[in-house]
């Protein structure tokens, strides 16, 4: 009951969803859309678990006065503020122009944009560390990355040659690499799904 029934549910719903894909009739189209809503709705309810987990971890840091517990207070204040602002006026709470959205635009957005911008620095340091001609493989990685980056550097007449080489790399070996990886992913992902559906892989369900 605790384990066998869920495994059976996975099997039945999985097989049904596979078959559904080949039936264009609208009754099955309806079932597909309904099933996708199941996933969304279950996910929405689970959000409460997430909020509880975040709160519990933060509160316990504060309670035990763990190092940096003061910062956890900020997390809790941020969370409580946004939850209150996001709920107290009904669905108007999240409209543009509310304090809720002001906080989003002026606290969340600059932080996420700056985190994203850190990549400009990290891509440089990663290139410095990784692109050493140690082995054949790392040399190939290094040389192709250089050729592609050199597109933007004026090299006089060499630029023309580099341009041709760069667009050849992008359209021939790069294309081949992508296709092969995609095919591999397709087979691997399908096999993983089948292992779940047929109950061969069931660790995610927990034991006991």
């Amino acid at each position, binding site marked *: 009951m605790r384990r066998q029934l869920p495994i059976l549910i996975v099997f039945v719903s999985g097989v049904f969803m596979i078959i559904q894909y080949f039936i264009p009739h609208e009754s099955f189209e309806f079932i597909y859309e309904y099933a996708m809503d199941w996933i969304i709705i279950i996910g929405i309810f689970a959000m409460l678990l997430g909020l509880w987990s975040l709160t519990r971890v933060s509160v316990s840091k504060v309670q035990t006065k763990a190092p940096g517990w003061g910062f956890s207070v900020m997390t809790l204040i941020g969370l409580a503020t946004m939850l209150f602002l996001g709920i107290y006026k009904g669905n108007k709470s999240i409209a543009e122009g509310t304090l809720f959205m002001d906080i989003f635009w002026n606290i969340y957005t600059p932080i996420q944009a700056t985190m994203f911008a850190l990549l*400009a*620095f990290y*891509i*440089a*340091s990663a*290139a*410095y*560390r990784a*692109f*050493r*001609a*140690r082995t054949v493989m790392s040399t190939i990685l*290094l040389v192709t*990355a*250089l050729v592609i*980056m*050199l*597109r*933007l*550097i*004026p*090299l*006089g007449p060499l*630029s*023309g040659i580099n*341009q041709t080489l760069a*667009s050849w790399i*992008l*359209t021939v070996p790069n294309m081949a690499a992508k296709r092969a990886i995609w095919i591999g992913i397709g087979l691997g992902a399908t096999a993983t799904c089948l292992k779940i559906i047929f109950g061969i892989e069931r660790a995610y369900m927990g034991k006991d």
Partner: protein
Amino acid sequence: MTFYERLMQLDRRWIYLAIAIAVIIPVLLPFKVPVYITPEVRSVYNFVENTQPGEIIFLAIDYDPNAMAELHPMAKSIMRQAFSKNIKLIISALSQNGPGMAEQLISQISKEYNKKNGVDYVYLGYKPYFGIVILAMGQNYRIPFPTDYYGTPLDSLPMMDGVRNYDDVKGIIDIGGGNITEYWINYANGRYKAKVALGVTGVMTADYYPFLQSGQVFGILGGLKGASEYERLTKREGEATEGMSIQTVAHLVVIAFILIGNIGFFMSKKKK
């Protein structure tokens, strides 16, 4: 630790500092780095240069504000080049969210050169079903656009007198950020044998090079780089040149650090 070993294990904060300098300084103090002009950009430039005053070029502005950063500089440079040579322009905007943006651009640039709507240029604006619009314009501009963007019948615009379709323009330059570009190639060039050149975003560039090789288009401006080359050719550097200069320096910094790391690697290996 020898000097070369130290080159291999630089504190990454030096790299961060170099990138910061490479980006911040040029933003505050604009400058320009030399640019290599690729032949596919030069051929577009030469095409406009060799057009005689009074002749017409068709400019298709087929992108929306999302692609402005890369494509606006191209449209600006081409319009400026044409107006300064007294070349007339027919302009369309077939991307759904683009016409307003295109209108702003046209009124801005035409003011700079004191050009008059209906006399020196015609702005057709937007109509849905871009495939049909492009095909129909091959018959007559008046099929999809009985009036221009401002509601004036094309027949009452002096510039459109005797101008019927693609046969009456020197060529088409399509600046596009999406799949409309394909229709210009397949319909305007494929069916009506019009000369077509493209301006496309950086990510689209590699996909459209085959059309250059097959001769279906006579030139391509690809992304910010193509735009900056064009600005350089028209001797009026703007946003593309600025952005591209920063990019060039930043790329040089990355490449320099890769080289430093490898020099350190090879030299310290040699010593052992």
